[in-house]
């Protein structure tokens, strides 16, 4: 088998390609490295000072409670939002000043790393993190369940996601990041043109997080199919649950394609295969097809649950049942199906010919129809409703306006000849930012404000929420309308420098100012959080149902007890909690009369161990350190076998104890305790 070993590149020495030379040298990259290291050290010191390690370990890191896992997802996603937001500001700053004889403050290679990291992190570690966070928090409650189908696998999913986050940020400290864009097209991403470890960091952070997502997809689908409470037939599910079901079906079908594509690229870079190479019988356009066969469904994976959030928010805050429930369900499944038939619109310029481009152009226009159905359903839900103009509703209204503009731009680009003009221009950049920022981010922001009291027991400050909203909306318009115009003027994406004669600079400056206003909006959200925690007594949610809402999660006390429902509910209609409230006299509560003992999973650190081993595996693969890969792999396998043969992974709570706890939770919410 010596023949095998000789066929592997660069696996030499104990540390592979790793050496001290890989630490950053120039001031800006060193600044990035110091920020990451400093941030981690500061957090560790604060936890030590507050003596919170044990609490963190027992209550959070080893928890299998989907609510805890959901909060961890969201916290990580918000930290990553700040990181990738700084990347965005760096890009806008560079483009505002790097004109004519000035070359700005970023070298072109560094600029390329910055935009690659921005896109990668925003999609994989911000949007995906917010989505999985929201699903973990809301979905089990909405179907009247205590848990997800596979609580331990849920923890593994989170820790794989986290391992990906660590890898992506480690690239700031040692080595570099991919400079090949967020989807790393070959041949640029091949070893020949990207010889550093940057692309490998990109591959392995995505691969590890992606496998976590795949496991989540299986987990949540099984949960929805098997764990709905009694009486909740499919057509009685809340719309958020439907949207999660659609999104997770897409995960299950799309993510294996990503796994394959990333693996093949890594094989090309490391083992000298010829999948996507320019010579040797490779086919680089195959990569582009494969990555978008995953990538386009991915857009819908992110946005469907955000649509689900809007469906809940709009119905609750309009005091009306959701308009067109059945058409909404069909719209979701139409989107799920059609999302696999449009991938080629990302590269009409490949030259597949008029027939192929025509087909994909038409399919792209057709997919706008179910999306339009959803928009109109939300608007009709509001029509003649008693609208509560709270911040979740404002995020929704901002979304409708921006999303429609972005959608129209998208349909425009679905026309292949038009796309030939706009391909890879800033018009495209403006289009997909409009879709993802308004659709995905605004959606999850609305969700965070809406469900915050359910999980913390107090509401978020509306004043700062309002400031944040307006900063985001105005900042967004200022940042991206210039990009639409610049796209028409011929500005391509990913420029780190342009000539003064283009006359683009004023628009780039406006876009930069817009990005700054968005940053202020983000700061406002942090202020909102801080002031809300400060005034938590005043903002207390004493009813468990602060929005007078419709679905099951509002029927339990706030914050939700770890067992979710003392007694699992039984429903006979949509919007079961709303129906329940209509039949009850004012002031009565929904406290159960009898209790039963329940079974819940015990905490375990094995998920964290699997994540850690996966990180070692990824790090070894990036730096070509075979023994570290083997160590990581053996660690993962051992951990799984140990877990599979563990007994006593669950614990019971007796009926009496549960009754006492439920009683206490209700009293604490009312403020007696």
């Amino acid at each position, binding site marked *: *088998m010596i*023949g*095998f070993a000789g*066929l592997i590149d660069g696996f030499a020495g104990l540390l592979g390609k790793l050496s001290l030379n890989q630490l950053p040298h120039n001031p800006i990259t060193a600044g990035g490295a110091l920020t990451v290291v400093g941030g981690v050290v500061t957090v560790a010191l604060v936890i030590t000072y507050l003596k919170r390690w044990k609490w963190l370990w027992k209550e959070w890191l080893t928890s299998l409670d989907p609510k805890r896992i959901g909060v961890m997802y969201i916290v990580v996603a918000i930290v990553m939002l700040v990181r990738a937001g700084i990347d965005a500001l760096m890009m806008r700053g560079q483009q505002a000043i790097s004109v004519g004889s000035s070359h700005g403050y970023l070298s072109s290679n560094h600029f390329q790393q910055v935009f690659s990291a921005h896109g990668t992190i925003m999609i994989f570690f911000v949007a995906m993190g917010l989505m999985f966070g929201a699903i973990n928090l809301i979905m089990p409650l909405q179907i009247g369940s205590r848990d997800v*189908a*596979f609580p331990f696998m849920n923890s593994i999913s989170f820790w794989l996601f986290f391992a990906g986050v660590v890898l992506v940020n480690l690239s700031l400290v040692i080595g570099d990041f991919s400079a090949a864009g967020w989807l790393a097209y070959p041949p640029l991403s091949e070893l020949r043109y990207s010889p550093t470890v940057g692309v490998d960091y990109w591959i392995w952070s995505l691969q590890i997080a992606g496998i976590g997502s795949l496991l989540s*997809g*299986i*987990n949540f*689908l*099984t949960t929805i*199919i*098997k*764990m709905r*409470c*009694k*009486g909740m037939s499919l057509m009685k599910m809340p719309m958020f649950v439907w949207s999660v079901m659609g999104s997770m079906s897409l995960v*299950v*079908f*799309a*993510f*294996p*394609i990503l*796994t*394959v*594509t990333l693996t*093949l690229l890594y*094989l*090309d870079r490391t*083992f*000298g*295969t*010829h*999948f996507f*190479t320019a010579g*040797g*019988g*490779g*086919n680089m356009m*195959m990569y582009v097809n494969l990555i978008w*066969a995953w990538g386009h469904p991915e857009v819908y994976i992110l946005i469907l649950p955000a649509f689900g959030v809007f469906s809940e928010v709009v119905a609750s805050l309009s005091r009306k049942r959701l308009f067109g429930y059945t058409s909404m369900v069909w719209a979701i499944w139409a989107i799920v199906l059609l999302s696999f038939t449009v991938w080629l619109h990302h590269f009409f310029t490949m030259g597949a010919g008029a027939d192929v481009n025509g087909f994909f152009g038409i399919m792209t226009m057709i997919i706008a129809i179910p999306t339009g159905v959803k928009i109109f359903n939300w608007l009709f839900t509001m029509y003649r409703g008693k609208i509560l103009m709270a911040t979740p509703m404002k995020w929704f209204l901002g979304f409708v306006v921006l999303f429609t503009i972005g959608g129209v731009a998208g349909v425009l680009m679905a026309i292949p000849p038009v796309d030939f003009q706009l391909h890879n221009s800033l018009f495209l950049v403006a289009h997909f930012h409009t879709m993802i920022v308004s659709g995905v981010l605004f959606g999850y922001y609305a969700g965070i404000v809406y469900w915050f009291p359910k999980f913390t027991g107090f509401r978020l400050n509306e004043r700062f929420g309002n400031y944040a909203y307006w900063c985001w909306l105005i900042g967004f318009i200022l940042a991206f309308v210039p990009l639409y115009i610049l796209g028409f003027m011929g500005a391509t994406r990913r420029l780190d420098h342009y000539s003064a004669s283009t006359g683009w600079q004023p628009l780039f400056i406006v876009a930069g100012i817009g990005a700054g206003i968005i940053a202020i909006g983000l700061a406002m959200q942090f202020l909102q959080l801080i002031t809300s925690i400060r005034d938590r007594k005043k903002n207390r949610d004493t009813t468990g149902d602060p929005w007078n809402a419709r679905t*099951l999660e509002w*029927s339990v006390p706030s914050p939700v007890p770890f067992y979710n429902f003392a*007694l*699992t*509910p*039984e*429903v*006979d209609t949509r919007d*079961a*909690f709303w*129906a*329940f409230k209509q039949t009850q006299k004012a002031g009565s509560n*929904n406290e*159960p009369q009898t209790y*039963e003992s329940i079974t819940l999973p015990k905490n375990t650190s094995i998920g964290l161990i699997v994540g850690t081993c996966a990180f070692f595996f990824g790090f070894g693969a990036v730096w070509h350190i075979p023994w570290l890969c083997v160590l990581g792999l053996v660690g993962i*396998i051992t951990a799984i*076998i140990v877990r*599979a*043969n563990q007994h006593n992974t669950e614990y019971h709570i007796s009926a009496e104890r549960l009754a006492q706890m439920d009683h206490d939770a209700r009293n604490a919410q009312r403020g007696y305790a």
Partner: protein
Amino acid sequence: MSTSTTVQADDQKPVLGFWIYLMTDCVLFASLFATYAVLFRNTSGGPSGYQLFSLKNALTETLVLLTSSFTCGLAMLAAHKGKKRQTMAWFIVTFVLGVTFLILELTEFHHFIQMGDSWRRSGFLSAFFTLVGTHGLHITVGLFWMLVMLWRLARTGLGKATIRRLTMLSMFWHFLDIVWIFIFTIVYLRGMIAP
């Protein structure tokens, strides 16, 4: 809305989850088959499948793997009858057949590499080694899983949870059999047609 007192039986969840996992694995192999279909003419001056493959070898592999699927089925029949020793015996036969398949496959790979026709030679060979190798990797995982289950069977016997896991293992094994049928057809049989 009222509250329900019945407890849901959760036995079905892992099996459903495993079916969904198998679907994802299906998509994974589908992507590799698509890759192979795109690249299989890209021999880049190197050998084509017609020059390289031995149908005798591929057929032997096929028969060995199909037989292992059959013995795996016998093992499951025994398991459902509660016959522990018989279950273990059939799984050991399945294991031996699986190892035989793997040895045949690796011998073929080794032979190709010795002739200088490794995955580095051409896009076609990259796709060949990756597609067939991914199947082989799955077989390896299956064999390892079988060992763990044999160890567990010896220790604990045929409990409800053990039978459930054996069911999933056998689903996995049959699934790999089906994938191999496609590999045999699309890679080897199709490869034997002169270009």
